[in-house]
């Protein structure tokens, strides 16, 4: 039977805010999902001509190539300071950082906390995959107790390396942030919730409400040495026990 193109309904298309440049993420990696969700959100809110991405050092180091809006690459950990400089000079811009757990919660701890504490009107998307992806699977401050990583080959030992850092909780006890939430991506429901959280965070920035942090529990199939399906199971069964999901602050 011949297909009538006119009668077909488009149920899935590439967000306008994405360029044609191919992602460099590994197959099955949640980074790709979040990158796409952000592009979709910017489309929905009609912010393409005002948005600036501050890319970190990590697996998303060149993500400014993938977005069809202005972008800048920040040194490892300093994305929130860079975002502060941009937003203060031009408050009309919608500025977000996108950072891994090494970037945001280890080397960039000071910049991340103080931008939150100043209540910078920016959106921080924090990919907590409990590992250093780009450098090949070393321990992150978020690595679970007992979890294997190349730099804790017998599993993370709290006597040696402390405990998984709950960054959203740290930021949530500050007075300035307006929205702090932790989400995940291990099933369809979670993906939709993450989408709503990211949209809300951007919406608050558009309304000049202030600082938002969206922490997302994500996977790293390559360095966890698991299939994507297994990583989702691990996130749902293990990781959420250390990192409870849900909104921690919503002051609006």
């Amino acid at each position: 039977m011949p297909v009538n193109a006119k009668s077909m309904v488009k149920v899935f298309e590439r967000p306008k805010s994405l360029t044609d440049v191919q992602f460099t993420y590994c197959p099955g990696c949640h980074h790709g999902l979040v990158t796409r969700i952000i592009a979709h959100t910017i489309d929905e809110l009609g912010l393409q001509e005002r948005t600036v991405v501050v890319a970190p050092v990590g697996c998303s180091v060149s993500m400014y190539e993938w977005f069809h809006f202005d972008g800048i690459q920040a040194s490892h950990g300093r994305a929130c300071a860079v975002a502060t400089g941009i937003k203060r000079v031009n408050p009309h811009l919608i500025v977000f950082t996108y950072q891994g757990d090494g970037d945001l919660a280890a080397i960039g701890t000071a910049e991340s906390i103080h931008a939150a504490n100043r209540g910078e009107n920016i959106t921080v998307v924090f990919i907590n995959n409990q590992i250093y992806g780009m450098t090949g699977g070393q321990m992150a401050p978020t690595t679970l107790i007992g979890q294997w990583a190349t730099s804790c080959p017998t599993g993370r030992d709290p006597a040696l390396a402390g405990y998984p850092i709950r960054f959203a909780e740290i930021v949530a006890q500050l007075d300035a942030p307006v929205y702090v939430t932790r989400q995940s991506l291990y099933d369809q429901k979670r993906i939709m919730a993450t989408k709503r959280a990211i949209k809300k965070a951007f919406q608050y920035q558009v309304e000049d409400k202030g600082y938002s942090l969206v922490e997302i529990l994500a996977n790293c199939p390559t360095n966890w040495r698991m299939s994507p399906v297994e990583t989702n199971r691990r996130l749902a069964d293990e990781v959420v026990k250390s990192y409870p999901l849900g909104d921690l602050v919503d002051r609006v």
Partner: protein
Amino acid sequence: MAEAGIRAGCRAYFGYPITPQNELLEYMAAHMPKVGGIFIQAESEVAAINMCYGASAAGARTMTSSSSPGISLKMEGISYLAGADLPTVLINVVRGGPGLGNIAPAQGDYFQATKGGGHGDYRMIVLAPATIPESIELVMLAFELADRYRVPVMVLADGMLGQMMEPVLFPEPVDPAALPAKPWAITGARGRRPNRISSYFLDPAELSARNVKRQRRYQQIEEQEIRYEEHETADATLVVAAYGSVARIARTAVRMARSEGIKLGLLRPITVWPFPYSPLRALSRRVDAILTVEMNAGQMVEDVRLAVAERAETPFYGKLGGLVPTPKDILREVKRYAS
């Protein structure tokens, strides 16, 4: 220097307290808001330089200031600014080092300022004022050069300049709105293709091409922007080479030497990068010795020796740890070579 920054059209200042430059930060805190500019006391020098990186990328004339240990912390950021071709003005009110050192005047950061300091193959224009009026002039110039060549520019001062008072006449303020547009800045991709600011180029061919292009700009700077002052060199048989506060002290030594019949002159680099190699080379052809005087163990003297080669003697006299040479110290040293 803070007022000069504002008059140069700087509308974004980020800093972290450190002696001897706190007055600069405090001045910015009080006066930036009056011109609608941005002042943030950052959580560290690292944060401050990265705020500069963002603010500069957004198109504003930006500035940060610090003193030696704080400048060390900024080095990665300076390298990123250079790699992303972003203009920014930095002031280093140099203090005694290494380590925490002390807060006395020193020149121990010459290598760091002129030879890299941060990682990678980059250059930074470095201006070395000797007086407060000149500091103002050079801060204004720093913003011009930074924008013209899209490079970070450092004003290399020392604790003496940082704590001195002199009457000054301020130039007319620059209107930031009247400055040339920056089509590369991130201002929102409205009616144009997205702008991207980055120093990350995974492909060696691409990184190489960018670096080669930048090196050409550096070459242009070396051809066009060398600044120096010669004082009493026309008939000199001996010359002191010194920059910053030390040059000022050396001027007095020149007067004292001349009153005793010693034909002493002074060459003072104003840009220490690009360094005035050729005027020194020219001098070296007609004088017996060029004595370099610094408040360090001998840093600029390496550039002087590069310029002079074996054509004249190139002794060095230095004071360390925040001690300041007196005109008499310099004269005594000069006399060793005057005979």
